[in-house]
């Protein structure tokens, strides 16, 4: 009983709706055999190498350690976890580290994963540190039980590095639709801040694939330099850039294994949040993902970034601030190792007591977060909005906290969301 479907698009006002109903497209309803025999499997994009966020911060429990994290492949629904819990074995997950104040990283931390053989066997991660030493660690598997599996954290006695990889709650909080509408309103000439007040966290309730490593700060320290945000005089400043890479050539053997060879090619990169998604025009996004921090510093994307900011009404002073964060020294997360940090970015240290609280932003008293590195709880969006709006505290998004309490110890993220008996009561602010 398929009615003649209405192929209308709803972009017009009610008056035009009358008109729209006059010019219906020719009706075609699906026949019983529309879903044919010969249709191939639905197309799939393997999202395994698209970076979502990168974090870099001093361990609030022990400032002699630096915590680095990157996550990929989010929007995992609780009951999807068993199918979507593995890391792509043909991808190299790399933290680029710059510690001379320059524009190109000098060191790397590389993480690769063994293929996953079954849903109940963890993968083995191989971590290669800047000094060349390596160690291995298992991933943490998810479960569909009411309680999540505890995080498996592996510590390498030789280097003092700790490692975790597995599904966690997605720590990001942001209203994608509201933000886009707000930007649209600004570009259209009539900025409407109320569009940021939709109060819907697009990321609440979902889990994401997280890789986190904690290393002694001494392993990453280089030359004191001026590259960090808000510093007077040289500090022990390091820059972190998250990168994913694949080998140039991948061959499939007849027994099904895949052998990768050839040089590594960059697939995606990420450091400062929202740069690529909000400031780079669509036509240049792919190029941005394939470019390096040296390209940034040489001004390759300066015109794009500055152009977008100008269109959003940012004044020169604030353009300068933002440029200093993401362009001048390349797009790195710059972390000042000398600056003490006792929080992971939730106001009042609530997170370290295991409670939910609003994320800190640049207007929070005693703020030591983004753009000084990036902590899991930092409200990076409101910090950026504040700066883009020329230090205007009125331009803020009402989605300003994660939906669940973050962790109190390394890796400092919340466990993944477990399936609920009644999916309606998931308590998310979505």
């Amino acid at each position, binding site marked *: 009983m398929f009615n003649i479907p209405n192929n209308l698009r709803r972009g017009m006002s009610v008056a035009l709706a009358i008109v729209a109903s006059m010019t219906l*497209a020719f009706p075609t309803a699906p026949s019983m055999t529309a879903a044919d025999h010969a249709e191939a499997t639905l197309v799939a994009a393997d999202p395994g190498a698209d970076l979502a966020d990168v974090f870099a911060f001093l361990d609030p429990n022990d400032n002699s350690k630096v915590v680095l994290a990157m996550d990929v492949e989010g929007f995992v629904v609780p009951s999807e976890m068993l199918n979507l819990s593995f890391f792509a074995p043909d991808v190299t997950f790399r933290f680029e580290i710059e510690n001379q104040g320059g524009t190109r990283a000098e060191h790397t931390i590389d993480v690769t994963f063994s293929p996953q053989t079954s849903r109940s066997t963890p993968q083995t991660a191989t971590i290669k540190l800047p000094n060349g030493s390596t160690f291995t660690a298992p991933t943490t598997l998810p479960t569909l039980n009411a309680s999540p599996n505890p995080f498996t954290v592996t510590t390498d006695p030789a280097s003092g590095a700790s490692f975790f990889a597995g599904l966690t709650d997605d720590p990001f909080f942001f209203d994608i639709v509201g933000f886009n509408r707000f930007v649209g309103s600004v570009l259209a000439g009539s900025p409407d801040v109320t569009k940021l007040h939709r109060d819907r966290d697009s990321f609440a309730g979902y889990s994401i694939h997280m890789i986190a490593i904690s290393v002694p700060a001494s392993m990453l320290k280089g030359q004191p330099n001026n590259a960090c945000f808000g510093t007077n005089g040289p500090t022990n400043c390091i820059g972190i850039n998250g990168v994913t890479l694949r080998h140039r050539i991948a061959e499939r053997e007849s027994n099904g294994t895949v052998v990768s060879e050839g040089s590594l090619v960059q697939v995606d990169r990420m450091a400062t949040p929202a740069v690529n998604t909000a400031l780079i025009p669509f036509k240049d996004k792919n190029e941005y993902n394939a470019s390096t921090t040296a390209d940034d510093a040489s001004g390759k994307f300066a015109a794009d970034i500055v152009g977008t900011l100008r269109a959003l009404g940012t004044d020169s002073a604030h353009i300068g601030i933002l440029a200093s964060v993401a362009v001048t020294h390349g797009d790195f997360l710059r972390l000042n190792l000398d600056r003490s940090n006792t929080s992971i970015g939730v106001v009042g240290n609530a997170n370290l007591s295991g409670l939910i609280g609003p994320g800190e932003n640049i207007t929070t008293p005693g703020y030591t977060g983004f753009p000084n590195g990036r902590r899991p709880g930092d409200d990076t969006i409101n910090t950026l909005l504040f700066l883009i709006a020329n230090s205007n505290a009125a331009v803020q998004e009402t989605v300003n906290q994660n939906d669940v309490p973050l962790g109190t110890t390394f890796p400092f993220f919340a466990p993944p969301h477990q399936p609920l008996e009644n999916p309606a009561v998931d308590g998310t602010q979505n």
Partner: protein
Amino acid sequence: MLRIKAPSISWPSVIVLSLCLLLTSPTGVFAHPMGNFTINHYSGIHIQSGWIEIRYFIDMAEIPTFQELQRSGLAGRLDDPKLREYLSSQAQTFLDGLETTVNGTPVKLRLVSQAVIFPIGAGNLPTMKLGFVYRRELSEDCQTKPCQLNYEDTNFRDHAGWKEVVVVPGAGVSLSGSTAPARDKSAQLSNYPTDLINSPPQQVKAQANFSFSNSLDAAPGSSSIPNKNAPTTETHETSGDGQGMGQGSDSGGAKVRLTPNRQGSPRNPFTELIGTQEVSLGIALLAALISAGLGALHALEPGHGKTIVAAYLVGSRGTAKHALLLGMIVTSAHTAGVYLLGAITIYAQKYILPERIYPFLGVLSGALIAGMGCYLLLQRYLGADFSHKHDYSGVTNRELSSDIARRRSGKVSARQLVVLGITGGIVPCPAALVVLLSAVAFHRIVFGLYLIVAFSLGLAAVLIAMGMITVYAGRVMSRLHLEGPFIQKWLPMGSAAMITFLGFGIALRGLTTAGLLHIRMMR
């Protein structure tokens, strides 16, 4: 001779116009979740103090019903003598597929009541809804400690459909955990949600822990099933019309009552007329009557220039005859449009795709209407003083000579009427087109053409009536002698502006559909 006695005021017309606008929100017509081949299940498990009842409904769509009627040799009517036996055997077959246990022991349910109805579905094919009530006393002691019920409906396993299980505690029974909800979402398969934001539930199992409260008539082993010794009642509901106006869903009790779905099968009765087997004179007349009625109903739906008709008449202070004329022109244009597009579709389909024509028709009409609206707007803007009384010199005679005067005074012009009527009606509605093409497919071309004429007549009638209402309402209001520049000038201008606006909209819509224009809105 047509005379306008006084300037017409259009407050009611404005109201009518606004109503038209309000009624045209494109909610779309979403079919309800029962596809043509689904078999829908409902299990209502009522746990009573000392006994248990299961109300089990199966709602079959057209194709499974067809198959079932073939298999069992039934006629799909309530007066079929084989029905009683069929029901009894089905009652047992279904029961065999319901695995019910309490504390691990199977419950030997007994049939208490059965019913069937055959509501008519799409294509005039019957659907079938079966209902059974099973009961059994419980010998377990569920008072001192809770008992556990396990239920699984294994009938028609793997067959697509809407599947619900609910567990409802009766008086003196407390549930301490149930995997099934207490309320269903379909009013026992008679009122399905149509909002397309929910996929059909797929619940066939339930587990519940329950206990009997401390009360006199809850002694274990006491059989307190009402009418326990009454013979199995069989009820055949006689609501076989299937038009979907049920009085209410099954409300419990030993007798099961079935009601047809409120959604029915959203079938277009017009297209179904084409499928009738023989066309006798009686059927032909009846079909024509129905088509006309449907055309009338269709005219009330958005489209076909009603707005433009009303707007024009509002602004031009037309008379009843104008309304009549306009209505007829729209209708003829519509009929011609359907025939034309049908002919093109059938004979020129190798070269021209129907989908491609539609948008351009829209662009053409839209441009003409917009042009017309602009013209009227200018006319009314520039038009000078109006006096109370105007001599209207007639539509057909002295058109040329009075043209200027008429234009100035903003009266109705025959040419304008014709242009407006044609352009308003020329875009044929897909329903009529489908009828025509279906008729061709069924080799009933003449019958199809005939039905479309009837349809268009019904359409005409309503349009004319609406035009009349506009005109007479205006006349009524004019007796109140409301005047002023608003009435004299701005309202007619407003209506002309509306026509222009709508015309642009139609044209724009056509351009967008044709893919020549992309409107991207970053909202």
